[in-house]
């Protein structure tokens, strides 16, 4: 188990280096990095100073070394617009996203997994088809548009819920639905197909031969096995959540890292965007590592291998 975690950590470190390298070279290969990293009204002294600190007059490999050296010490540049270290801007906003995401995951799992089980139990029936329609629709609607639609219906027309900004519990409802919808569809689809496969297996037959109740057979013996493929897709889901957060926070004016990313794009704030991408990559890798450990817990074949 320890070796497994160590190996995963190593892989994560390699991936992170790749991301940093890509980000670095994207900033250099297209035009002059000074233009990207300073506001348009920067003075000649500012430019000279930046060229000095980043070693921009030296060979590109030296520049890369400086970039990595600074990154290791937590310096990923200064945001053009906010005039503060990009890393600080990220960590100021991170908590606001972290209070949003768990609710979306909870919504996705609490709705998606049971719906998938029920759809599998009623394969081909009315419930299955209804669930299938919801899933197909959930995938076809762009989530930013879904968010706007929800605002129109529940804030503008009905006036039941606030249309944006952080606040009390009511402020969470629409963003969580917007962010969680694709998870509901995703969890449901995978749970359904995994359940259908597991329900045909011999060990389920043996569980019935033992005379166990249908509830134990389905929710213990089948579901625990069906959760394995659900967990393997977590990696993809985490990536989608991070992207989904950009869109959702933009629509609902939610001051998290997603909204920060959007602002970095529309204000062409390259140092901020660069920092956000590297830090988000670290976030994704950490969550993936946690999921891998959870995965090993669910599947003894991995835990004990």
């Amino acid at each position, binding site marked *: 188990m320890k070796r497994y975690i160590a190996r995963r950590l190593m892989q994560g470190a390699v991936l992170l280096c790749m991301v940093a390298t890509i980000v670095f070279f994207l900033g250099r290969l297209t035009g002059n990095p000074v233009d990207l990293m300073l506001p348009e009204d920067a003075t000649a002294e500012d430019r000279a100073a930046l060229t000095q600190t980043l070693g921009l007059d030296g060979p590109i490999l030296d520049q890369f070394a400086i970039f990595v050296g600074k990154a290791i010490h937590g310096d990923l540049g200064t945001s053009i617009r906010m005039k503060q270290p990009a890393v600080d801007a990220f960590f100021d906003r991170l908590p606001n996203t972290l209070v949003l995401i768990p609710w979306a995951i909870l919504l996705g799992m609490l709705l998606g997994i049971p719906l998938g089980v029920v759809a599998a139990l009623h394969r081909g029936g009315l419930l299955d088809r209804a669930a299938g329609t919801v899933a197909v629709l959930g995938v076809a609607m762009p989530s930013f548009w879904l968010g706007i639609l929800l605002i129109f219906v529940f804030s503008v027309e009905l006036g039941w819920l606030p249309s944006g900004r952080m606040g009390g519990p009511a402020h969470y409802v629409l963003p969580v639905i917007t962010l969680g919808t694709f998870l509901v569809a995703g969890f449901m689809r995978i749970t359904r197909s995994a359940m259908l496969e597991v*329900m*045909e*297996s*011999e*060990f389920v*037959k*043996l*569980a*019935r*031969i*033992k*005379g*166990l*109740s*249908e509830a*134990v057979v389905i929710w213990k*013996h089948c579901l*625990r*096995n069906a959760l*394995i493929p659900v967990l393997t897709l977590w990696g993809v889901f985490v990536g989608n959540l991070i992207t989904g957060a950009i869109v959702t926070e933009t629509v609902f004016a939610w001051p998290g890292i997603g909204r920060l990313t959007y602002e970095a794009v529309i204000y062409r704030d390259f140092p901020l965007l660069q920092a956000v991408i590297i830090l988000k990559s670290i976030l994704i890798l950490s969550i993936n590592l946690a999921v891998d450990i959870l995965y090993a817990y*669910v*599947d*003894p*074949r991995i835990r*004990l291998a």
Partner: protein
Amino acid sequence: MTPDAKGETVLEVRDLHTHFFLRRGVVKAVDGVSFSLRRGEVLGLVGESGCGKSLTALSLMRLLPKGGAQTIKGEVLLGGENILECTPAEMREIRGRRISMVLQDPQTSLNPVFAIGDQLREALLRRKRAPLTRAPHAEVMKEAVAALRRVEIAAPEQRISQYPHQMSGGMKQRVVGAIAISGEPGVLIADEPTTALDVTIQLQYLKLLKRLQAETGMAILFITHDFGVVGRMCDRVAVMYAGRIVECGPVRRIFEAPQHPYTRALIASVPKMTGPVGRLTTIEGQPPSLMDLPVGCRFASRCSLVEQRCLDAYPGTVRVGDEHTADCWKATPA
């Protein structure tokens, strides 16, 4: 161990019909099967794959595969009660406690994500005698260790916390056996339990089943396609062909004087352990489609002794000897 001919009948199957209703038509996989099973005896159910043996077993457990299978006719009398009329809840009470089953493939019979002890515990908690429902966990686990010891698993204390993937196929099948008999059932169905095992392991497992039977007095319905195993395991044999039992009788009688041409062909296709090496025969042709069965004898198309009457009508079941019956026009009534 010769069976007591007067042993009480624990399971009686009468005219069982289980068909698959598909869009393309009806597959008559089990089409009028009757047999009985006595306390302490092993009845072999033999036939080629696809003849309906496994589906017969699943019909008895009332665990038919999804996709249109249905038992439409017949009776399954377990201790005199027709379990085909039981409600699903009553059926759950019966499974494991009065009738149980060992499946063919040990690799997939155990749930990969639960420890052996956990899977055994679920079965032990359903035991009738000396109920464990309120017993503390440690006590149940002690019982689980005892159950593993009973199926001759070495170091059961360690095995109990292991997972299926950490065990060999033979060991897993022993665990499946332990689970199947934890509820102390009167009838055990063993559906080709050794087909997936190595030859040496097969013998050990058959011996184990015999021993467990001697200890508990349960009746075993032993399903196999291997006549060699029948001679070793069974007291009586029922030969199944295209959804029906075509011959049934004591093992010795079947081997010495088989009455149905199909039985004769099956026995001839088994290599003999002793005696001169003769020619092994194979049976020409294919069994009829279960979707489009002939009116006459189902073996007629492959039978070397076929006559007109075989094609015109199905032969009735003929009593050819003491406890020995055959469905053949040419069988001589006793």
